[in-house]
């Protein structure tokens, strides 16, 4: 779950370890930490610690067999590739979690077992009182160890731990998948589903408590700083779209690739698209209505009947080829649900626990002769108790790194200015979100400061930019703008900073033109805000 910092490890009793070479692939169970090769950005491979979150037989998906297997029947590859492991790279964001073939696991390096109870066959030594441990971790590990135990009890030579899950299988695989699949392949699908369920079940049974501090304190007292699931849901009941508790989210990515319009992208995180679509090689998404399909033929049939060319809402901004559409989550229930599920693929902390009705959606589109292609969006609570002006914000990955994110942010503040309110995005931010917001705040504040000749206070800055005081303060601190000079506090903009600012301004191709915004803040009666009916 959490990337374990070395500090953390040091303070707890060391986890049981299997020395390199003393175990083989079948021994590895969910929760174990192994070293695996990971291709680095510059071509060379690094050996990195990875936590195994799920194990499956190499997917021989019916669609793969249908579409591609005819082409390459060189089936039995290396035996170790028959197993695939879903790993979380230590200290990396979850979006880089990946299925890796068994051949990439370094069996000659040590394997770390999940901590609480070591499987007796390997190590009996360190047994720790589970109560003292970070609870959620211990739970996960407990279950994982149980698996490991089973795995050991079961015939090690059997195809894999997948057989363990057979008794739990409940979901029938989608018939479309099953058609040409031999029986064993169909079973594989079931295993995967069940696998994901297994994780959730663990969380369900008793794992409501998640220590957010990630074990920073030496002996973490579980309930004090914990954010229980009930609290979480209670908070979400009235507002918000972000989850603090990651235990709530299935940990194994269930989608591989998404085809959205012209683009095909990898999914980053779990998303609750119908279970039958889990682990399809590609999920097909209509660019305009965001409906999802398991097969290309369905998509083509859909495209023949879909008449939508733009998000089904009102255009409130148009400049050059960019438009913003405003949608009411209550009116456009299906569309907004589709959008939410799509964006969940790329947002870790987004939760779809509750429905979309209390949100407004602002969708940024690029127009061309085909229609209005969605680039990104942000959602916004119709009434935010915490003064958030953004709930979720996302640039679709195929459009990232083009400055659209900053445009979305700018637009969200433009709306806040129209409303006459200060606003801040809903927390927690993702890493990319943090960088985007920090860049926007820095740019906006510096711009403002360069264009003022009077003394300013933080309050002035906040009022003129709609950025909250805390965010302004934070940005100025990180930029180290506050100086003590000649006995007074000043804001200092050194020339080097100005230069850098100028450069980024040049790089920036687009900006929001407030005069193109035709928008009145939507108003809702009390009754309408009571979430509908």
């Amino acid at each position: 779950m959490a990337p374990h910092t070395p500090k953390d490890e040091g303070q707890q009793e060391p986890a049981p370890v299997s020395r390199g070479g003393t175990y083989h692939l079948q021994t590895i169970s969910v929760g174990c930490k192994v070293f695996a090769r990971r291709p680095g950005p510059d071509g060379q491979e690094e050996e990195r610690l990875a936590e195994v979150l799920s194990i499956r037989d190499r997917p021989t998906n019916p669609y793969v067999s249908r579409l591609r297997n005819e082409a390459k029947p060189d089936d039995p590859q290396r035996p170790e590739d028959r197993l695939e492991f879903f790993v979380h790279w230590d200290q990396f964001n979850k979006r880089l979690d990946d299925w890796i073939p068994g051949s990439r696991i370094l069996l000659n390096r040590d394997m770390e077992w999940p901590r609480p109870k070591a499987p007796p066959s390997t190590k009996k030594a360190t047994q720790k009182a589970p109560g003292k441990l970070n609870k959620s971790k211990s739970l996960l590990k407990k279950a994982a160890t149980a698996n490991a135990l089973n795995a050991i009890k079961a015939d090690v030579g059997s195809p894999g731990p997948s057989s363990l899950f057979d008794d739990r299988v409940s979901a029938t695989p989608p018939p479309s998948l099953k058609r040409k699949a031999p029986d064993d392949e169909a079973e594989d699908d079931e295993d995967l589903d069940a696998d994901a369920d297994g994780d959730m079940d663990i969380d369900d049974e008793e794992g409501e408590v998640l220590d957010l501090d990630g074990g920073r304190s030496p002996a973490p007292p579980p309930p004090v700083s914990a954010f229980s699931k009930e609290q979480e849901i209670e908070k979400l009941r009235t507002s918000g779209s972000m989850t603090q508790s990651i235990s709530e989210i299935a940990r194994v990515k269930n989608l591989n690739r998404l085809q959205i319009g012209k683009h095909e992208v990898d999914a980053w995180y779990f998303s609750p698209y119908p279970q039958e679509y889990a682990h399809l090689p590609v999920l097909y998404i209509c660019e305009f209505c965001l409906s999802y399909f398991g097969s290309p033929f369905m998509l083509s049939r859909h495209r023949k009947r879909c008449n939508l060319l733009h998000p089904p809402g009102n255009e409130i901004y148009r400049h050059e080829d960019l438009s913003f559409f405003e949608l009411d989550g209550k009116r456009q229930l299906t569309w907004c649900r589709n959008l939410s599920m799509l964006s969940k693929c790329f947002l870790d902390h987004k939760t779809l626990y509750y429905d979309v009705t209390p949100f407004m959606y602002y969708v940024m589109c690029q127009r061309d002769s085909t229609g209005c292609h969605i680039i990104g969006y942000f959602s916004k609570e119709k009434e935010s108790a915490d003064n958030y002006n953004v709930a979720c914000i996302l640039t679709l990955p195929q459009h990232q790194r083009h400055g659209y994110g900053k445009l979305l942010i700018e637009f969200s503040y433009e709306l806040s200015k129209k409303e006459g309110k200060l606003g801040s995005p809903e927390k927690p931010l993702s890493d990319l979100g943090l960088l985007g917001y920090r860049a926007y705040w820095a740019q906006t504040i510096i711009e403002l400061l360069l264009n003022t000749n009077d003394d300013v206070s933080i309050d002035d800055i906040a009022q003129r930019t709609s950025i909250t005081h805390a965010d302004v303060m934070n940005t100025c601190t990180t930029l180290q703008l506050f100086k003590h000079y000649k006995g007074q506090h000043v804001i200092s903009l050194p020339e080097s900073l100005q230069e850098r600012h100028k450069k980024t301004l040049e790089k920036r191709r687009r900006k929001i033109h407030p005069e193109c915004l035709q928008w009145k803040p939507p108003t809702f009666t009390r009754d309408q805000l009571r979430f509908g009916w």
Partner: protein
Amino acid sequence: MPRNPAGPSTLRNRNRVTNKTRLKVIKESIDADPIVLDEDEEKARVVSTAGVDAEDANEHHLQAVLSAAATRHQSIARSTRAATDKDSSQPAAFIPTPDSTGIVQNYEDLYPPKRWHDPTNYVKSSDTLEECTSSALVGGFIYYMDERDKDWLDRNNEEARGEGTSAQGAISGSTRSARSSKAKGKEPEVSQPVVMTEDEFELVMAVFEKVTHEKTEFLHHGLEQGGPFPPFTDYQDAFSTKLQPDLFALYEVPSWVPDESKLLPLARAVYAYWRERRLERGGHPIIPAVNLDETDTKNESYICFRRREIKAVRKTRAQQATYSDRLLRLKHDLERALLIASDVKDRELTKRESAVVGQVVWDKRFALVDLKRRYPTLGTKEDEELLHDKERIPKKAKTDTSGRPIVRLHAGSREPAVSQEPIMHPKAKLEIIQKQIESEMVQRKEKDHHWEDAVDNAYQATPTSYSSRLFKFIQSTRSTHTPDSPSSPPQRHRAARLRFGRGGRIHLDRRLCDPRSSRSPSESDSDTEVLEKRRRLQERWKFDEDDVPAIRPEGLEEQDRKLADDFDPKYLSHRMSLLSDSEYNMLMTDTSFYVTLPDGRVDKVTPYRLGVINNRNPAGSVTPRTPGGSQPPPSRPTPNGVTPVVNGTAISLPTPLKSMPPPPTVPSLRISANGTMRSITPSLSPTVPSHRPSSSPVRDQTHSTGIQDDPGSSVKSEQELKMTVPSQANGPDAVK
């Protein structure tokens, strides 16, 4: 994070920058130490990742980017030019993301270009997804074929084409067999292939799904329990009539939809296939949908879009009225407006009618006058009357008197009388009427004499509260045994009320009957100062009517009371059998209590208890210490020969029964007697037990047994009494 801890500047840093601090903006490079707002390095790190989940904040790539940025700022802040150069040479840190570079090959086929043209105005649209999909059924039932459907459809169409006419001929046979097979509970493959288009296939499938959803929404549960799969006849209705517009999301039947005669065979052909697919899905819809089933805990992570509970809304009175109420009221108001309007119309019509009639009358009179003028001999004096408008006069009178509502009432009733009367001069008539009115008014006034005119006199006495009704009057017997004070009026009543407090305490509230009159001792009449004072007091109390118990001793309430003697053998014989002695004991608390005697010893005193032999004398032999209580208390024998428990509170209870007036032999109640009160006041709690017997036994007459058995509470009430005495003592003092 590399940062200069800025040792010497820490003192200056104490001055916080607040939100309102005006800060000078310096746009040149200056050589100054940055203010480290948070000296704590750890805190600074948190600031840099503020808003990110604590667990994610330590991630490798994020930290790399942040630290790169921090060093950049650091270098800028230090304004070392070289640093910026060096900075650019570093490989830019970034957060890697998964691949997003795939390009779809058949994009143009799927999304044909040249379909979108920018409208002049901003797009306004509120169509939902269903409404934007061709031939979608209402409720979001849209079926899209997949590859498998395509295979089936192709095969079906081939077969249908290959067999051609024979398929048509076989239809009737197939229905028959379908019917017979239904009886067996099985659906064999009876359908005949019929050529159909993809759209038709999808429509039929969608209708199947929709009807299934409506009729057997929980088919999957049914199948799990071995329930039957709905037979084709369940769906026959949907296909055997023409598809209605309300089936479609756009409320319009697409033009290509075949009519029912063609649709039914299609449906029949598809049914078996649809059934097969649906069964494969375990009864779920063929196209998977988002899991909204909140009870499906097994797949919890896939459940999404739960309904939010309704937000609690602050209740205001305006909101409490329901919409239906408001609409009803609105309807009522509108109806009334309509009614008024129609009445006004009627009135105006009547007016017009009368005007027309008046015109006719006028014409006739004119003719008459003309006639008379022409032939003066014809007319008699009486004819003159015909020229007058008789009705005018009563009308005038009416308008004159209509100023007052009461009068108007009678003016209306007078009208017939007027019409009977012979014609007389308007003035005289007016006088008569006026007189009549006056007399009516006088009569009315007489009639209303005992009534409060709520119209003119807005004051209405506040209704007496229930609690104040509980005050009961005890007839004072003071006059009998304090003959030395003739000044006190013989009719002095005291009101008192018993009330039960927490823990069974009994409180006694007393009310002087009339606070003002108590301050009128006659001997000081001559003293002007006293007189003045009294006048003022009276003035002050003038409106304090409510200070007096609501029910006066001579009030109605007291008059028709039924007297019941609690000690009437009739009652006693019943009551004495209710509880046995042991039960009495059980009901009693341990009443003994400790008293510190004057010489310092602590003595345990057990108050007198029914049925318990006590070393103290029975009540009868105790000499009351009250100066007023000159007569000995009666030794009233109880059934078991012991004097009844003596309770201190000699007040009638809030029982509907009227307390019996004390018999002449009985001494005054201790409380009601002034002297008694005062004699108690100086002696505090230790004396209580000794006083107990002296408190009159009379009170048992009205006391219910329950209270009687609780001596503890009676003690309490006595103490309560003492507490209240000083505040009320003024009155009796003044009397003396």
